[in-house]
C-alpha cells in the first residue's frame, strides 16, 4: 500500500474551473491567501464566479485581481473594508455580497466539510444579520439555521505539502485554509515547499491529504505574499 501522488501543474488544475463555479479561497488578510492560484484563475478567465472568502484582500492583492477582472458575480464574506474595489462594485450592484459573522462563516464551511446540513446558532439574533433566516426552537430557545457551505473548488495555501496532499500551515496563515480544504469537491493546494511522502510527520499534518485533489509547489514566493508596507 502506497499513497497516491497528487502533484500537478497549477494551470492544469485551475483549468478545471468552469464559468459560474463556486470557489472558496483561503486566507485572512495576506497570510494564507493562495496568491499564485488566484493569478492562475485570472489567466484562466472563468467568469460569473461565486467566491467564498473571509475578506476581499486589499487593492492589488489576492482576490482583488479577480474582482478587477470582472470575474466575480457574488461574494460570500465577513468584511471587505480594506478593499475599495469591492465596496465600489457592491455599491454599484455589479457584485452581490452576502455578509456573515466571521465565526459563523467558518463554522458553515466546516459543516460543509463535515457533511452536515447546517448548524444551529444564536449568533446575531436581534440584529439585521438574522433577517430572513429560518429559526428553530430547542427547549424553548430560538436558534438560527445556518446552512452548511460547500464549493466546487477550494484554493488553498499551505506552508508544506507532501505528494499525497497532506498539508501543514504556519502561524496565522492557517485561518480558513483547513476548513475550506475539507469543503470542496475539488481542492487545489499551493505549497511553499513540497516534501516527499513521510517527510511530514503524521502528528504534524493539519489537513489530511484525503481531502486534497491537486497539490503544486510554488516556484517563487512573490512580493504579494510579503509584509504589507502601510
Amino acid at each position, binding site marked *: *500500500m*502506497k*499513497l*497516491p*501522488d497528487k502533484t500537478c501543474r497549477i494551470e492544469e488544475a485551475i483549468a478545471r474551473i468552469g464559468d459560474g463555479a463556486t470557489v472558496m479561497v483561503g486566507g485572512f488578510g495576506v497570510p494564507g491567501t493562495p496568491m499564485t492560484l488566484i493569478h492562475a484563475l485570472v489567466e484562466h478567465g472563468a467568469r460569473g464566479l461565486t467566491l467564498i472568502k473571509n475578506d476581499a484582500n486589499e487593492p492589488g492583492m489576492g482576490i482583488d485581481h479577480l474582482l478587477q477582472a470582472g470575474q466575480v458575480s457574488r461574494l460570500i464574506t465577513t468584511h471587505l473594508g480594506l478593499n475599495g474595489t469591492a465596496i465600489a462594485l457592491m455599491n454599484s450592484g455589479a457584485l452581490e455580497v452576502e455578509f456573515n459573522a466571521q465565526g459563523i462563516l467558518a463554522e458553515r464551511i466546516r459543516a*460543509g*466539510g*463535515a*457533511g*452536515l446540513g447546517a448548524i444551529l446558532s444564536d449568533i446575531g439574533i436581534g440584529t439585521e444579520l438574522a433577517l430572513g433566516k429560518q429559526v428553530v426552537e430547542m427547549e424553548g430557545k430560538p436558534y438560527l439555521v445556518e446552512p452548511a457551505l460547500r464549493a466546487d473548488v477550494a484554493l488553498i495555501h499551505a506552508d508544506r505539502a*507532501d*505528494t*499525497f496532499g*497532506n498539508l501543514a500551515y504556519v502561524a496565522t496563515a492557517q485561518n480558513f485554509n483547513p476548513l475550506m480544504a*475539507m*469543503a470542496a469537491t475539488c481542492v487545489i493546494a499551493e505549497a511553499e515547499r513540497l516534501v*516527499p*511522502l*513521510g517527510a*511530514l510527520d*503524521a*502528528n504534524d*499534518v493539519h489537513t*489530511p*491529504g*484525503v*481531502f486534497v485533489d491537486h497539490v503544486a509547489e510554488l516556484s517563487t514566493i512573490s512580493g504579494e505574499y510579503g509584509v504589507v508596507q502601510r
Partner: protein
Amino acid sequence: MVARAAREIAPGMVVNLGIGLPTRVVGCLSSDFPVCLHTENGLTGIGPPLAPELADRNLIDAGGAYVSLVPGSAVFDSAVSFAIVRSGRLDLTMLGAFEVSASGDLANWKIPGKFSPGVGGGIELAQKARRVVVLTTHTDRSGAPKLKQACSLPLTARGCVSRIFTDMAVIDVTPGGFALVETAEGISAAEVAAATDAPLAIPDAALPTF
C-alpha cells in the same frame, strides 16, 4: 473471497475496511498498490497490522488492532475522521453483515434482546461511503440465509449496499434485486440460489469463478 473482495479496490481509492472479515483484505494488497486506508478513530494511511511485541500502544484501528503507518500517514481527531466519511471523501467501505436485503438495506449492528453493543461508526460508513460492499458468510452459523428479501433486524442504513462477497458468490444489488455475478470455485448457481432467501437473477452466460 477475501482475495476476490480485494480486487474491488481500484488504484487511488480511499477505503475503510470494517471489523472482522473486511480487515483481512489488507493482507491481499501489495506494498506498491496506490490506495489510502482510513479508520474511524482518526488515521489515514494504515500500514500492515503489528504483533503485540512490535506494536505502538498509541496506534490502533477502530477495531482495536495494532496497526502501522506508511509514508504519508496522517492522524487527526474523530470528528475530522467522520468528516472524511460524511463529506464524500471515502470511495469505498467494506462491511460485515447480519442481513442484507434485496434492495440493499444493511443490518449489522443489533439483534434485539441478544446483542446491542451500540452502532459505533457503522451507520455513517454505510450511509455515506460512495460505494458500500459487504463481506460475509453466505449463511449464519445455523445455516440460515443472510441475504433476504427484507431485513428483519434493525437497519444500519437503507439501500446502501452495492455488492456482496460471500464464501459462495459475488452478488450485486440491482434495481431488480440480487443478481449473481460470480461463484466460488466448485459452487453452482443453483446452490447459491438455494442459500439465498430472495429471488436471485442468474445470467444465461457462464459465470466467472473465484
